[in-house]
């Protein structure tokens, strides 16, 4: 095994073990990651998938991990470099949420998920590019320029966690953190050909995740493989007293889900996710994956989630509404950008008009509107009621003997930069993913093949807190599809 380059080929668990044994120094792992980032053109003048790094700090973290190891304390992610999405608070790198309004802001506290990674010995090497305030499906809405897909640089990496997905796809790190509100981890995972997991709502603490839509947001994990993602989720999941919506439920051993047979597992194929106009090549990859699952002993059943076609509309009422309130704190008073104007009111307006981009402005307007007097019942309350119907669809199916659902993650592979100019057209990229956010159920995307050289993702959706079942099937499918899924 060659030092340096070889390290980036190790899985997260292998790297941690290597470092833990003393066979590799954390510094070297970090340097390998940095080298790979440079090689891949991760920065501004290349793919623009990473925004911030601090080599001295990364080395300091590495030295700290080495010191702990020498003192006999080896964490489950010892020496493993990770990338964190720009909307997750870190004390040592800026947290700008892809926005001008937080340009240069360095959080004085770490997100709980970040703290848990650090406690496990992981090393935060960079913050990744994203759609501004997580509003977008392509990472073209970043105030710091669009990111490009490492697999095909004229195409988007997906969004809003495009930078994190791409950094795993480019081999810079094995594990990256992203965030999900409507599909912002799974969709870029599918576009970039990596694994992306959205946990059950409440599984991972939101403390330190800059809020977009509080009832939908979750920190998600990207992994090069299912095992990387499982290890990442294992490390950050669990009750957090700093987040009132975090779930008081034990975290099972996700990695132990590997290796089982799928006999007795019932997988649902919801017809609403395989519409007649679905790209036939994507349909073919999905059905091929289902065949593999059958050959592993699983039963595949046709099911229906009848309210699926209302999901985007529900999402685009609820998410902007909550966002309009969550983004009110960006007012130039206590942190972030401040622009002068005519008095206090002028300061608010100059700050927010300069600081927010077009998509964010559009969603704040929409959100403010649907909450405003006279419209609250017709829009916001109505959408929350329909959301209950969507959630019940999942409940019904999971109570009927079905353990998991399998669907395409996205209706198309990665599209070209600039291809989607109509906002609603862009919103439709989330059509297969946002239902899981609305219902709060866990879901993940893993690579199931390629179409014209572009990665295609297959999505697994499980019942609340049944990530372990989801990983079990994902491990099995990944092993079955083998390296072919990544070609």
């Amino acid at each position, binding site marked *: 095994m060659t030092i340096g380059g070889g390290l980036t080929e190790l899985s997260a668990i292998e790297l941690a073990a290597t470092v833990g044994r003393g066979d590799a120094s954390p510094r070297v792992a970090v340097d390998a990651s940095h080298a790979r980032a440079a090689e891949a053109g991760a920065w501004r003048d290349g793919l623009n998938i990473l925004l911030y790094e601090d080599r001295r700090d990364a080395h300091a973290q590495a030295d700290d991990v080495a010191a702990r190891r020498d003192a006999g304390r080896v964490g489950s992610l010892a020496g493993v470099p990770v990338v964190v999405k720009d*909307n*997750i*608070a870190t004390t040592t790198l800026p*947290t700008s*949420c892809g926005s001008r309004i*937080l340009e240069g*802001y360095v*959080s*004085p*506290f770490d*997100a709980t998920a970040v703290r848990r990674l650090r406690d496990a010995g992981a090393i935060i090497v960079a913050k990744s590019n994203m759609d501004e305030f997580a509003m977008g499906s392509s990472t073209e809405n970043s105030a710091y320029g669009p990111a490009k897909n490492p697999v095909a640089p004229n195409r988007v990496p997906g969004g809003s966690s495009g930078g994190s997905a791409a950094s795993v796809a480019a081999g810079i790190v094995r594990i990256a953190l992203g965030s999900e509100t409507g599909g912002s981890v799974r969709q870029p995972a599918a576009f970039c050909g990596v694994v992306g997991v959205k946990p059950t709502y409440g599984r991972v603490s*939101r*403390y*330190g*995740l*800059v*809020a977009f*839509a*509080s*009832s939908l947001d979750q920190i998600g994990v990207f992994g090069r493989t299912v095992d990387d993602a499982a290890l990442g989720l294992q490390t950050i999941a669990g009750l957090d*007293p*700093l*987040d*009132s*919506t975090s779930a008081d439920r034990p975290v099972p051993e996700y990695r132990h889900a590997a290796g089982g047979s799928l006999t007795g597992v019932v997988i649902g194929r919801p017809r609403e996710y395989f519409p007649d106009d679905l790209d036939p090549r994507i349909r073919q990859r999905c059905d091929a994956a289902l065949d593999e699952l059958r050959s592993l002993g699983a039963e595949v059943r046709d099911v229906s989630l009848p309210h699926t076609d209302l999901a985007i509309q529900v999402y685009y009422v609820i998410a902007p*509404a*909550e966002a*309009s*309130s969550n*983004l*009110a*704190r*960006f*007012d130039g*008073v*206590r*942190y972030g950008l401040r622009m002068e104007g005519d008095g*206090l009111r002028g300061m*608010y307006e100059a700050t927010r008009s300069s600081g927010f981009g077009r998509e964010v402005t559009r969603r704040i307007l929409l959100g*403010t509107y649907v*909450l*405003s*007097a006279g419209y*609250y019942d017709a829009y*916001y309350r109505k959408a929350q009621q329909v959301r209950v119907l969507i959630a019940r669809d999942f409940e019904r199916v999971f109570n009927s003997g079905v353990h998991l659902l399998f669907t395409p993650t996205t209706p198309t592979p990665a599209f070209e930069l600039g291809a989607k100019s109509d906002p609603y057209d862009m919103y439709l990229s989330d059509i297969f993913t946002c239902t899981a956010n609305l219902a709060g159920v866990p879901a993940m995307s893993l690579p199931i093949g390629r179409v014209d050289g572009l990665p295609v993702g297959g999505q697994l959706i499980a019942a609340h807190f049944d990530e372990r079942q989801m990983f079990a099937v994902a491990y099995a499918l990944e092993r079955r599809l083998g390296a072919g899924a990544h070609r």
Partner: protein
Amino acid sequence: MSTTAASPSVPDYEMVVGLEVHVQLDTATKIFCRCSTDFGAPPNRNTCPVCLALPGALPVLNEHAVDLAIRAALALGCRVQPTSTFARKNYFYPDLPKGYQISQFDQPLAIGGRLRAGSRSDGSPIDIRITRVHMEEDAGKSIHDRFQGATAVDLNRAGVPLIEIVSEPDLRGADDADAYLRALKQILEYTAVSDVSMEKGSLRVDANISVRRPGEMALGTKTEVKNMNSFSGVTRALAVEFARQCAVLERGGRIEQQTMLWDANTGEVRPARSKEGSHDYRYFPDPDLPPLVVSPDRIERITRELPELPAARRERYRAEYPGLTAYDVEVLTASTGLGDYFEQIARQTEEAKTAANWMMGDVLATLKATNQTIEHFSVRPADLATLLNLVRDSVVSHTAAKQIFGVMSRTGDPPLQVAEREHLLKVTDDSALVAWIDEVFAEHAAEAKRFLDGERRLQGVLVGHVMKKSKGSADPKRVNQLLSTRIGT
């Protein structure tokens, strides 16, 4: 557009008032974070990511704040809801860090209470329905005149727990409002929920006021009056706004629904400059906080732990201490501390009326003069009780007792010790008394002669001289007897 008080002729209109009272709860930490609520810290010292509204911060509810809110609600006769929800009230202001206040909107903690605040001069009871009690967070402080051209923002207060107590528009005059506020303050003090001080800002009052013809059922258009910082401010402001509304209607005008601000310096109410559309708070349930579930066990525990409330205590005193007048009861139940102190003495002396007199006289006067609270009074109740018993048992005279009390309050020493030290024990020894009488007769020879010649009424004066000479320690009864024998009676 401001007005002063109208002339008190026959009122053509009835004042209809509802009060919204905000009360700071007496917790150690803020409602949604662990920052201290301590008064007087340097600006922004008691702040953290949560109350600074840093990106990514989240609220977590303070259990003690919930318990205090429930306690207040129960004391006001409200029904505490098993489930209540938090809502965001969205607006922009520099001391509102999140750009919204976390409050409760359509599912408050408690509803349907009642407060009896005494009676009016016509004898009718002031019986006010409480619509709701809900929890919310306080905003920070904006200080406009500290720096030239700037407003200074201190967020130490942002996140301090509040309850808002909303009354129905059952108040019918400024006097009603005053009585209601005093009764409310008393209940909140009894339940130790807050230090309820308008001066300190832990009790704030907003009023909704409208007018109508007496006998009319419908309510007139109301205005909201804010910025009243004392009880007298409330009564004055209500009177002024009442007069203004009456004048408008008399002119044939219509009352505009708006917010008025009281200016204590000028005695005027004037409209707050309002931005159009500024009242759309866009309330929606706060997705960061699941509903507050209050178990029957919690309600039962807090009910059990409720102290005796003012009305119950007044009733009990009337029954247990029949020698007390209504006024006595009123004064002794003004605060929990006073009543507790009184009862400790009463129990030890079994002379409630005497104890009451001492409380309302010497004790209250001393507290005021020395700026002490009854809770930390230098005279322990047991010691005062002992002193009263010494008087009852004729060990010291009443006059001496007053002096002894004075020394006790300065030194905290027990009464017998003080009496001995100051030579104030009642002297009953005839030889000593005779010696003093003789001295007095010598010093006041003229009076003495007239007394001996038959002017009986000078006996009191002579007794007084003896008391003075003996510094109060002479037994006045015995002195009287001895004097009587000198004139052969």
